[in-house]
């Protein structure tokens, strides 16, 4: 009997790797250039968000939820407000619902343009990266005009939105949509539907068959690219979306065949760009006048929420998939009993790790980029400090001292003393 010696190499991709935007570790077992097994390890970006959330009141969690992610910050805000509103039975005025739709779709446009660039960079096509991120600047300008900031625009509050869309914003949005329709979208379609490099790299690579997508509960464009027609805005009949006419987009409408590979996922994203622009136009037409908030001030909302009891679930379709938040009330206190969220990258990562077995190594970074990983959202549960005992614990004072010394080497005129000065923060009990 012959013993075959197998030269299998285990290489880690991540946590620090030029192909990944955020840290995660994939341990890949290779046989030459063919992949045999993929193992996922997360937790490099753990910030302790849920643990902090157990100690903050309802309005503070609104800001905390927003800062979990940079590109889908509005989605987290929105889903959390939905969950609290369902729990307490608060009704939101209609104009606020339309404004939420408009801002949500603007965020979807900017996130999809970002992802098109990232996939282009991962296949070595830098021109696509630079040009699509240049096109994205227009949307960011509009978001800055409405919200005041390019990311983390705190538009939502419990029971409505904070800022209104005025006529000048409306004109600017319609101009932007015209610019995109005439100049940007034809070029995007030419690159992502017809270009030979893109087709050679993305076709028949990283295939997630429909059966695995259903079994692993893949979400968002990852699932729709494999033919699973689900979309949380459509299934939930969320807000005013049914009045605007929404349905899940699959590659069948663009290319006619569904294979579940990376090309199909990019086609779904291009299709969603078209759909978002139509939704914004219809929402701007149908928007009624009226109030935008259910409670004029946040304190009144807190008082009302103190008396609430029960639990609520909010679901929304973030640019990456289905986002779900859960809130349970503690009657008589401003701090909720439990808050938990799950974002769409988590099941998508495991689905793509299962689908990568049998592919080539060159496809791994492109496959990971094509599911649009947003790992800031994934790693968020409770650890603050973990090393006790054997290793030397670097307290904050040590780190600060080291950093001040380095600054002093560079510029001796800066004087500072490494002492923490502070008591409790704003009266919140720890």
């Amino acid at each position, binding site marked *: 009997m012959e013993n075959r010696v197998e030269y299998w*190499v285990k*290489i880690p991709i991540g946590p620090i*790797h*030029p*192909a990944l935007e955020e840290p995660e570790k994939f341990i890949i077992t290779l046989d*030459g*250039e063919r992949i045999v097994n993929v193992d996922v390890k997360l937790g490099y970006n753990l910030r302790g968000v849920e643990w902090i959330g157990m100690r903050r009141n309802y309005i503070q969690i609104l800001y905390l939820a927003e800062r979990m992610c940079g590109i889908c910050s509005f989605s987290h805000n929105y889903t959390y407000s939905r969950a609290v509103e369902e729990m307490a039975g608060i009704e939101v005025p209609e104009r606020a619902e339309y404004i939420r739709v408009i801002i949500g779709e603007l965020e979807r446009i900017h996130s999809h343009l970002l992802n098109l660039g990232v996939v*282009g*960079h*991962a*296949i*070595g*096509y*830098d*021109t*696509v990266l*630079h*040009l699509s991120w*240049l096109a994205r600047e227009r949307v960011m300008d509009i978001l800055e005009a409405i919200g005041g900031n390019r990311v983390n625009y705190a538009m939502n509050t419990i029971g409505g939105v904070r800022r209104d869309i005025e006529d000048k914003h409306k004109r600017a949005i319609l101009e932007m949509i015209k610019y995109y329709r005439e100049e940007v979208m034809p070029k995007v379609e030419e690159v992502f539907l017809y270009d030979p*490099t*893109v087709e*050679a*790299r993305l076709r028949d690579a990283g295939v997630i068959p429909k059966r695995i997508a259903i079994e692993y509960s893949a979400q968002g464009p990852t699932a729709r690219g494999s033919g699973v027609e689900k979309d949380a805005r459509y299934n939930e009949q969320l807000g005013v979306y049914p009045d605007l006419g929404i349905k899940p987009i699959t590659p069948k409408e663009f290319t006619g065949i569904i294979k579940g590979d990376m090309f199909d996922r990019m086609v779904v994203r291009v299709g969603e760009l078209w759909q978002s622009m139509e939704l914004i136009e219809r929402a701007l037409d149908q928007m009624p006048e009226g109030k935008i908030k259910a409670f004029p001030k946040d304190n009144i909302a807190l008082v009302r929420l103190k008396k609430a009891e029960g639990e609520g679930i909010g679901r929304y379709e973030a640019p990456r998939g289905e986002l779900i938040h859960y809130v349970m009330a503690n009657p008589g206190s401003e701090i909720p009993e439990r808050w938990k969220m799950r974002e769409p990258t988590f099941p998508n990562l495991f689905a793509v790790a299962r689908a990568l077995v049998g592919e*080539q*190594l*060159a*496809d*791994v*970074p492109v496959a990971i980029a094509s599911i649009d990983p947003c790992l800031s959202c994934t790693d968020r549960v409770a650890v603050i400090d973990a090393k006790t005992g054997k290793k030397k614990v670097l307290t904050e004072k040590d780190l600060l001292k080291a950093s001040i010394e380095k600054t002093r080497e560079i510029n001796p005129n800066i004087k500072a003393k490494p002492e923490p000065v502070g008591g409790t923060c704003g009266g919140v009990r720890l």
Partner: protein
Amino acid sequence: MNIAYLTLGLIAIYLYVSFVSLIWEGVDRKLVARMQRRIGPPVLQPIYDFLKLVSKESIIPRDANKFFEIAPVLALASSIALLAYTPLGFEPLLATKGDVIVFIYLLALIAFVRVMGAVSSGSPYAQIGAQREIIMLASREVPMMLGLFAILWRLSKLGVEKPFSLGTFYQYNIWEIGTPLTVFGTFVLFIVFLLWLASEIEVGYFNIPEAETEVAEGPMAEYSGRHLALFKLSSALKEFASASLVVAIFFPWGISGYLGLTGIGAVVLDLLFHTLKVFIVLFVSMSVFRAITGRLRITQAVGMFWGRILPMSFIGVLLIVIDVLGVIA
């Protein structure tokens, strides 16, 4: 030629070519940036990079063996030796009968030394990059050698003093034979040579061994400091030498003949004109190609070489051969 003249000439050529090729890299980055609607780095940026790399410390991994430090020096030495055989607007310095074989050998040697350096660095990323480089090396030399030997054989039939030498391009030109079959065959070989040049420099479709987003710089993953500076310099010299070959085969006309200069003045003027032609060929083959294409997978690139470029090369060679047989018989 005595030894002193030879050595001085080689040192002068080496300094000139390294300066010019680093300037070309800066110009290329600027042009590609403008094509992508960015501003891009200043034109002297690669010279600053080189000086900065030389002044940093080189980190040697624990698992590397002795060859790790020898490899950059060997690569640079091979590049300097290659310069002695490149046609630079005038005959190469050490031109003899059949020196085209030494030229091709040195080109392959530089790539081989890179692979050996990568394998001895002990990192799995470098191992994968080295595998890709070897496959590309084996695939890209075949069409080029076929075309080069066919052209040199055709030219040697016209009666040159050093057959199969790279200096023959300055005595007779492949275009001046003039029969339609030869012109068409040469044109086909021109396309083959442009693609070969792109894959020798590793840009665009063929940016596979040093794919920065896939294997974190591939063969150069563990090199830093002085060693990386030497490798980069040898790559730049190899780039210039390969482009010089393409220019010498297809556009070897000089201008000093028209202006009637002789001696040192003619040599310098020919050199400058040759540099200009090299820049233009590199612009087409490197900058434009890099800006309009992405990277292929290794199986697709190898398939392209053996399935498309090699047959094209065959067709070009066959056309030239049929033409010769027709004339003689």
